[in-house]
């Protein structure tokens, strides 16, 4: 038995992977974090992240009280868009309701409205919108105008004020005919959750070993830095893929989001994305001495990463410099793939650019991480 024994890379990595898995699955708390928290996050985000404007609380002041004015109010509330929360004769109630936030829209029909309409004059309807939530206000304003305009059109046609004909706009929303924001947001939430989890598990996993002193014990062994990196990241990558499967299942079965494209393409892109995310986690672990520092650094990374991804906020309307910044964000490219595959049934030729970028980010990220890792350990 003289001379050193020599194991193989495969053997060493396998030993490390087995150890990681055992640690991850021994602790019930960790198990919960891995498997239950993505579901809870998806449910929470899936319901909360919602830019649909429906059932806007509306305060109505009808000074006219005629059949015409009532039918206008009727036209407003018959849609799913407005919900009357109060009716009054007092014009001041609109201001109060908007000030208190009880209503977002005020509808005021002036006295003599029906007479104006009947007499060939123009009946003016006041629509007061609380602009403090600019998104809701924009959409609500658009709906209200549309409803009143249609009402006007119909009235004009009934009274033969208009020649027949005109343009009929046949609008169709592709990929999401009922225009629900959930269909757009839920697949993206899946991507964000997987990024969060893979960052958390890698960064914390490495830093915890350093805090505990077990990292040194591994480093004096024949385990090469590259093997250590592999042993640390393979289990996380596998878990992240499983998590992705879970959240996608919830998205399909619970939220009823359609998956129109190829699952295989989604998996391939996800694998690249997870690798890119892991390498960021590894990089964070090389600049953090404690789990606390790692967590904060992660937070500082994830915040701009989410804002600059097109997850919640459209990229096209950002200032030029932020649009450019989004190009360096793996989440941006991944979300384009996820949304493309889910909603549009896009294929690999449609997403070639995104896949290429994700692939190079994964490779570049891992190379950088392994370089930093070697330097940190050396």
């Amino acid at each position, binding site marked *: *038995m003289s001379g050193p024994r*020599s*194991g*193989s890379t495969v053997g060493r990595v396998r030993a490390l992977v087995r150890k990681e898995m*055992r640690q991850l699955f021994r602790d019930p708390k960790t198990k919960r974090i891995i498997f239950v928290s993505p579901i809870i996050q998806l449910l929470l985000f899936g319901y909360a992240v919602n830019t649909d404007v429906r059932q806007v609380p509306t305060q109505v002041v009808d000074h006219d009280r005629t059949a015409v004015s009532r039918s206008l109010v009727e036209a407003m509330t018959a849609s799913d868009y407005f919900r009357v929360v109060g009716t009054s004769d007092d014009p001041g109630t609109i201001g109060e309701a908007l000030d208190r936030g009880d209503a977002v829209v005020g509808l005021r029909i002036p006295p003599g409205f029906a007479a104006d309409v009947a007499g060939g004059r123009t009946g003016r309807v006041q629509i007061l919108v609380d602009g403090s939530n600019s998104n809701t206000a924009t959409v609500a304003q658009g709906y209200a105008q549309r409803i009143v305009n249609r009402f006007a059109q119909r009235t004009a046609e009934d009274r033969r004020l208009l020649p027949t004909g005109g343009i009929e706009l046949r609008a169709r929303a592709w990929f999401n005919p009922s225009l629900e924001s959930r269909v757009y947001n839920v697949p993206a939430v899946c991507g964000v959750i997987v990024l969060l989890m893979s960052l958390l598990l890698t960064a914390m996993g490495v830093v915890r070993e350093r805090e*505990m*002193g*077990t990292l040194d014990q591994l480093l004096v062994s024949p385990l090469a830095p590259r093997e250590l990196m592999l042993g640390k990241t393979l289990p996380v990558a596998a878990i992240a893929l499983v998590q992705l499967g879970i959240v996608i299942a919830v998205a399909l079965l619970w939220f009823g989001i359609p998956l129109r494209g190829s699952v295989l393409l989604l998996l391939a892109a996800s694998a690249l994305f997870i690798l890119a995310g892991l390498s960021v986690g590894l990089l964070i672990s090389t600049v953090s001495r404690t789990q606390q520092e790692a967590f904060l650094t992660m937070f500082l990374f994830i915040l701009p990463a989410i804002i600059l991804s097109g997850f919640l906020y459209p990229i096209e309307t950002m200032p030029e410099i932020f649009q450019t910044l989004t190009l360096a964000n793996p989440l941006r490219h991944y979300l384009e793939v996820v949304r493309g595959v889910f909603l549009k049934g896009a294929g690999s030729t449609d997403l070639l650019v995104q896949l290429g970028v994700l692939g190079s980010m994964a490779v570049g990220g891992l190379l950088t991480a392994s370089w930093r890792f070697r330097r940190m350990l050396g």
Partner: protein
Amino acid sequence: MTGSPSPATTVASAAAPHSDAPPVRVRELTRRFGDFVAVDAVSFSVDRGEIFGFLGPNGAGKTTTIKMLTGLLSPSAGEGWVAGLDIRHERPAIRQRIGYMSQKFSLYPDLTVGENIELFAGLYGVAGDALDIRRAWILEMAELGDDVRRLTGALPLGFKQRLALGTAVIHEPPILFLDEPTSGVDPVARRRFWDLIDGFAAAGRTIFVSTHYMEEAEYCHRLALMNRGRLIALDTPRGLREAEGLRAAGTPGTHPSSGLPSLEDVFVALVQREGGARSG
């Protein structure tokens, strides 16, 4: 040792690859952290089968030196060889030939005893029958019986320490680095631990151990005293005490009684002459 074969005897005949070279040798080894010189041009050499003690106050540079020898830190200057291999350029080859156990208990508390053993066996390429033999040996040595399913974190500290020692030598390395291996352990467990170390040395292994327990220093064949990053004395325990005794004899009133000063007195006197321990 009892009638059953001593655990150490099963690891006999651990030979270094370059058996003519000293197991550990450093020349002008230096490590700086910014402006701070943690280890300052230290030179020494350790013989095969020797228990080489590294003594010094906190912050003297003991741990930094061990980290350089085990490849956890790169030297800023100077050279060093472990098992005849260059510590700068031949780290991978060195790793297979050394065992390391640090002051921080560094097995995984959330793995069982058996799982920890398997992990390090896997890392060092110990498999098959060899693994079975080594596992049985570690369990016996650590007096853990055959209960491999216990969570390591739940073991008493003395047992943890011996288990850590066992996994550190699972690949039967010819050279063993121990960085304050017994800190926090009660005197009885510490005594047992040193019996094991003695056995390893008797079987031809080289032990490089740092400590700040004076009674442990007595177990060492030779002692290197570190202070403020410098090596201030290197001799056998007896040699150090005799030298200090001679010196003290020349200074009236210091050691009125006959006999040699204790190692602790030697240590304190040497450090004070050097200008006190470094804070931090």
